[in-house]
């Protein structure tokens, strides 16, 4: 499994676009934060972290899953299905290869946001450790849900362009809904995270079902 994850990661990381798009939000955040007023409280800091994190992950997830769509269209996934590995393991390795770097980049962005905040707003209350944990949990759940469902859409898309467009719209939509739910029900934070995780599990099940019937997506 580890070998497969590393092989997949090696492929994805070779795509320079991934790095460019992953770094772009960091610079955007830096620029926006420099312009924004620094007199924000803890709750605002939390939303700030989430907002910039979500913008980043929308792009990252869409791009990473685009790799899967490319692999599908080039027939590469078919080759892996000939291996004596369960489809769940192959799929898990692919998702891990996509998600682990995404989460790492998210972590870098969160740290960057915190550093910038403390550098610019020494005089106002900065985000507490609890805010950071909550922001990280929300980003994790939203990334997972978006990635799993985007991969599902990428596999079922009839053409690459179609799949890419669909999954980008879907990722942004899902993240928008999740963030709206957070704003509407701020006291139900962990319930929203749980719903996102359940949604991810359902997505994974659906993805596995689709993966198990390759004639549905291999044949155009």
């Amino acid at each position: 499994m580890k070998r497969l994850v590393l092989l997949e990661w090696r492929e994805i990381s070779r795509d320079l676009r991934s790095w460019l798009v992953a770094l772009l939000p960091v610079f955007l955040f830096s620029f926006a934060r420099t312009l924004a007023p620094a007199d924000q409280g803890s709750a605002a800091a939390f939303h700030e972290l989430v907002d910039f994190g979500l913008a980043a992950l929308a792009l990252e997830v869409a791009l990473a899953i685009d790799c899967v769509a490319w692999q599908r269209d080039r027939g590469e996934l078919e080759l892996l299905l000939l291996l004596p590995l369960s489809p769940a393991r192959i799929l898990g390795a692919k998702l891990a290869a996509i998600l682990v770097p995404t989460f790492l980049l998210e972590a870098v962005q969160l740290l960057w946001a915190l550093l910038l905040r403390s550098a610019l707003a020494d005089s106002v209350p900065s985000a507490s450790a609890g805010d950071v944990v909550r922001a990280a949990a929300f980003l994790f759940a939203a990334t997972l849900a978006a990635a799993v469902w985007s991969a599902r859409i990428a596999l079922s898309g009839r053409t690459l362009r179609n799949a890419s467009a669909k999954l980008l719209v879907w990722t942004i939509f899902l993240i928008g809904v999740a963030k709206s739910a957070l704003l509407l029900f701020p006291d139900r934070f962990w319930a929203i995270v749980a719903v996102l995780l359940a949604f991810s599990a359902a997505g994974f099940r659906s993805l596995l079902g689709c993966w198990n019937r390759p004639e549905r997506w291999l044949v155009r």
Partner: protein
Amino acid sequence: MNGAAVLKAEELSFGYRNAERLVLDGLSFDMGPGGIVALVGANGAGKTTLLRLLSGLFEPRSGRIERFGKALRAKRADFADNARVGALVAAPLCWRSLRVAEWLEAFADLSGAPRAACAERRADLLRRFDLDPRARVSVLSAGNLQKLHVVRALQHAPELLLLDEPTSALDPASRREFWSVLREEADRGSAVLVSSHQLDELDRSVSRALLLKGGRIARELAGDSARPWRVVAAAPEEEVARALGALWNRAAAHSGADGLTRADWPDDVPRNPVLAKLVEAGIPVAEMRPLALSEMWGDLL
């Protein structure tokens, strides 16, 4: 049914989504260990589809597939048995940044094959196919890419080989080497199912041939013994007819522009009396041999 069947297909049917007709319609056959079986058919006859079904990539609409005595269940649950199969049913490339040796080693490791034995076989196959282990897989030519997939399918000493047009991009020397390797695999006990349009190549190596037409096995041929024979006599058709009398089957004979008469005989007709009567009549016999696959099925393709 063959009790020791390595592979068995029963009443297989398959059609692609939104397609009007079935590609496979009630196809049945089985094969045991230690032989090369050729799958022959026109473009679109369903050879690739059948090999993909047998590889477990596709699921039949109806019917049943058994590999190694176990049903290839729906939803690819028998993935563990893929370690006993060497399949070349598609030639795409993943992990493009790897070199040939690394790429093959990754597949072997993921197949769970014993490392040392597999490395030895891999080195031997790379040498025989003249494939540079240090080359990056992303820059391989079509022919070398096909060799790469052949080595991938063979390196873990599979018990069942499913090969879809494995020589289509190979040069003549590599083709000869390929068939030599394949015969060795069959001698080792592997069951080999190979599709190809190169009937002459198949003719020299296969122990059995299946003609796929109309979604099922339309003809089947097992070894030389079951083949019709052809006699080529240096005389006009009428003269040959007089000599052969009751044995003569005019429907199966024709005179060519070269003045030779060719007649095909079913396998169950004794060949010696035919030869004896022609010699007795003083008709020179230029050739007497089993029909080649291309002569038998060429028109059907």
